[in-house]
């Protein structure tokens, strides 16, 4: 329990590591990398302990009934809805059992005993009717009531609005989903940190690299543990900025900084959706950012369908940018400009799945808003399926091994999004989990290859025949490729199959809806995946070495993480074995463990149904993958299908297709040249012109007008009329003066005489006349 309530330590540790590296890193013997590795190592251990703790917590007998009991681990004040539930439940309880201590929810504080007592107290006092907003899922399953009890801790962040009812909180919301991400993020981070200490050694900004890698881990963990949507935004943007910094790690070269900018700006475009979506949900949930509140309300009809639909479309927009979905995927391949470990960590395993995670986190919003259940098409599924298929096609024409992997990532993320879109929630997260392992292996393997090939990623021109020189890299790459292609019994097979089954179409049943079109698209995507990965292996590892110099195997700090990750990528599939495969049944203790661990059951999660494992579909998809491998093998290794070679040069249609693919469906052209070009160029210039000429023109014109008017007044009225009068007077005066000037002798004494005489005369007048 301690680990669940103190999960905040993990991101805080990484943030501390960031500061330490930033300020003291350069003075350390290993330039700060040791701080980062130590911190992430501890974080990983803590994450594992948290996972263990969650496992126990989750499997504990649920004492008490209803959602109030399930939410007993939610700290007071973190969620209005839960407080509401608790109060309701509590009220009934005190009615029924007068002997209860009457422990008010208000004094729960952070004492876990208090909440436990509360739950115990309930079980003592017998059966209670579930409150109004209870989950029907729990009741309908009937058997044993398993309810997920998220552990939520929060602190006030700010209060904006009417005091008492509009507190913005931040904190941790720990349940299976966030624990899973904790483990994934810390594990991959640990591997990448170790790998990087060799891979980027001697780099010009080695210390900064580790600092920002730490900051990235901190932000990602902060995001994963988010208790409120606003906290999610913060984490979301912070990982974005870390990605920006790390993509642009070698910013001396223009293409790198361009890629960084592109990534950041594209994400910003998506962020509009996030900001607006969160704003809508904030007001819809009665001025609350709490994820729990939102989910409870959305799952139980507390928010109208229309609002949920708009909000989910807005949020999908955000997913498109962050998780590289069509049509905002274009930044992801360019993001490969960053160091390879960064690509592995950020642009394959963790940051890019933030979108998936966000959808999964707010799943009731999407589930209800998009009416996933009982439908056959929805926006989320379309986006995912299109991405999965077209992304895979793009991977075919890439020469750069990292770009192949980037498009592969886009495509695989499409799989996950589709899974969420069709209601296969667990499958999506399971695929996220397995994909993180094998895709990280692939990226790190690509890094190892380029290390040998003089830092080139061009597999067509600079690689080839590497299998003999880099045996460890080769074998791990092969394993990860097989997993990615979904070859039995590697992990990719299980997770991909679950997604396919979740469509509720073609051989399978038990899904939430019947998504035929998406299934077909995903199958095409899966076929392509197997094919382009085989192509990659051909170019990288077989044939003659086409580069220069003598390649050599990388050191142990590179290969050990590779081996660990490849092993994991191979075996983690067993974590979610189905209950039965045809005649075989797996004991309960080992089947669907992942699902039990991750998937929430309760008021804050919609009721989703789970597809059964389906042997025909599994065999069909496996056959597709194997045939893809075989065909590609024949094409490259054996030179079969001669007519295909050079087809694009001969056939107009094929040529056009290839051109479209090479130009990435012209999205880059559209964004960079058309939209950005327009905004930066004509639009900005027009605005500036407007400012300088129209607005400033008006201002200057007014000023000039005032001056001209002034001049007119001066010349005509002042000079002619007024001055005329004045001048007239002056002329008269001057002439009179001409007469009188003779009096002015300049002799002071004359003046004195005049003065005295005049004074005397005047005084005389006074004295004689008046006095």
């Amino acid at each position, binding site marked *: 329990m301690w680990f669940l309530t103190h999960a905040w330590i993990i991101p805080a540790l990484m943030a501390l590591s960031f500061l330490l590296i930033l300020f003291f890193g350069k003075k350390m013997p290993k330039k700060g990398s040791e701080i980062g590795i130590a911190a992430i190592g501890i974080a990983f251990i803590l994450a594992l302990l948290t996972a263990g703790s969650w496992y126990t917590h989750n499997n504990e007998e649920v004492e008490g009934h209803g959602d109030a009991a399930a939410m007993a681990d939610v700290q007071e004040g973190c969620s209005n809805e839960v407080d509401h539930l608790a109060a309701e439940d509590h009220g009934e309880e005190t009615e029924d059992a007068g002997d209860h201590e009457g422990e008010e929810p208000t004094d729960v504080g952070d004492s876990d005993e208090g909440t436990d007592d509360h739950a115990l107290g309930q079980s003592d006092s017998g059966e209670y009717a579930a409150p109004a907003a209870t989950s029907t899922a729990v009741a309908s399953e009937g058997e044993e009531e398993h309810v997920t009890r998220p552990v939520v801790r929060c602190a006030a962040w700010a209060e904006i609005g009417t005091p008492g009812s509009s507190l913005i909180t931040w904190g941790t919301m720990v349940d299976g989903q966030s624990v899973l991400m904790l483990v994934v993020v810390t594990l991959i981070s640990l591997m990448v940190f170790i790998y990087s200490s060799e891979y980027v050694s001697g780099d010009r900004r080695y210390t900064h690299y580790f600092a920002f890698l730490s900051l990235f881990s901190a932000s990602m963990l902060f995001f994963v543990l988010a208790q409120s949507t606003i906290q999610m935004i913060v984490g979301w943007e912070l990982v974005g900025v870390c990605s920006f910094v790390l993509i642009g790690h070698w910013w001396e070269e223009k293409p790198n900084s361009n890629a960084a900018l592109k990534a950041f700006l594209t994400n910003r475009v998506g962020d509009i959706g996030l900001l607006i979506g969160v704003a809508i949900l904030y007001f819809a949930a009665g001025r609350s950012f709490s994820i729990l509140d939102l989910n409870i309300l959305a799952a139980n009809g507390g928010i109208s369908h229309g609002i949920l639909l708009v909000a989910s479309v807005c949020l999908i927009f955000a997913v498109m940018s962050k998780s590289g979905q069509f049509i905002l995927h274009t930044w992801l391949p360019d993001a490969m400009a960053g160091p390879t470990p960064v690509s592995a960590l950020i642009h394959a395993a963790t940051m890019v799945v933030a979108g998936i995670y966000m959808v999964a986190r707010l799943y009731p919003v999407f589930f209800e808003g998009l009416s996933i259940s009982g439908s056959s098409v929805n926006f989320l599924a379309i986006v995912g399926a299109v991405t999965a298929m077209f992304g895979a096609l793009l991977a075919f024409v890439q020469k750069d091994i990292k770009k192949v992997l980037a498009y592969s990532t886009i495509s695989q993320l499409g799989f996950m999004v589709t899974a969420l879109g069709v209601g296969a929630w667990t499958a999506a997260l399971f695929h996220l989990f397995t994909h993180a392992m094998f895709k990280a292996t692939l990226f790190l393997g690509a890094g190892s290859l380029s290390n040998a090939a003089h830092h080139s990623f061009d597999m067509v021109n600079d690689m080839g025949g590497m299998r003999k020189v880099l045996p460890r890299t080769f074998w791990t790459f092969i394993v990860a490729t097989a997993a990615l292609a979904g070859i039995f019994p590697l992990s990719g097979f299980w997770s991909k199959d679950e997604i396919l089954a979740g469509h509720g179409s073609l051989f399978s049943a038990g899904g939430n809806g019947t998504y035929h079109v998406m299934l077909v698209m995903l199958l095409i995507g899966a076929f392509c995946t197997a094919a382009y990965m085989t192509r990659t292996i051909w170019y990288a590892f077989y044939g003659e070495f086409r580069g220069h110099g003598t390649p050599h195997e990388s050191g142990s700090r590179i290969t050990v993480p590779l081996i660990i990750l490849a092993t994991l990528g191979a075996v983690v599939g067993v974590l979610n074995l189905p209950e039965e495969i045809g005649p075989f049944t797996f004991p309960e203790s080992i089947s669907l463990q992942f699902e039990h661990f991750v998937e929430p059951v309760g008021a804050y999660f919609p009721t989703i149904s789970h597809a059964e494992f389906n042997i025909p579909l599994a065999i069909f998809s496996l056959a597709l993958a194997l045939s893809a491998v075989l065909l590609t093998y024949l094409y490259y290794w054996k030179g079969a299908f001669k007519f295909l070679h050079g087809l694009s040069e001969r056939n107009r249609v094929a040529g056009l297709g290839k051109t479209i693919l090479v130009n990435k469906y012209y999205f880059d052209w559209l964004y960079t040249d058309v939209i950005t070009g327009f905004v930066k160029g004509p639009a900005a210039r027009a605005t500036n012109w407007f400012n300088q000429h129209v607005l400033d023109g008006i201002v200057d014109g007014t000023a000039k007008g005032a001056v001209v008017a002034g001049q007119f007044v001066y010349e005509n009225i002042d000079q002619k009329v007024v001055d005329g009068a004045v001048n007239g007077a002056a002329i008269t005066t001057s002439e009179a003066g001409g007469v009188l000037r003779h009096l002015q002798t300049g002799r002071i004494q*004359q003046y004195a*005489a005049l003065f*005295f*005489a005049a004074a*005397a005369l005047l*005084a*005389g007048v006074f*004295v004689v006349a008046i*006095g």
Partner: protein
Amino acid sequence: MNAQLISLFAAETFEVPANIAFSIIAIFMVIAAIRVVTTDNVVHAALWLMVVLGGVGLNFLLLQAEFLAMTQFLIYLGAIIVLFLFGVMLTRAPLGRSDDLDNKQRPIGIVVGLLVLGLVSYSVIKTFGSDKLDFSAYDGSQAVAGNNRTEALSDAIFSQYLIPFEVISVLLLAALIGAIVIARRD
């Protein structure tokens, strides 16, 4: 001496000799003043002026303003006359006689002077006629004895007239500096 005694002394015992003294002094003063404005020797003019100023001081004594009289003697006779003599010498004025000291406005001057004199005399006589001097205002509220009149004067200067006094001091300073600035060779 008490106040009564003084007024007695002033009013009666001193009446006649004072009048006689005044007449003599006044005649000398008028003659001397006329000489000041008519003499054709600059230095003589200064010396005649000295006579007038001394007479003024004596008049002060007659009016029982002994402090003022002393001041008059010290400043005018002591300082200002010397200053004039310096002025005369520094401007290389002819030390002997000269015919060129007056301009051509003598008639105008006489007319204006008589006009002023006539007017002032007329109004003075008309207004004050034969008012007798009494020195009661000197004693005013305070019983004056011995030197106390000077004391009262100083009291007046440093209390009631403090600010004008200060202003005058500043003026003196300014004049001093001004004179130096104007007159110095540079």
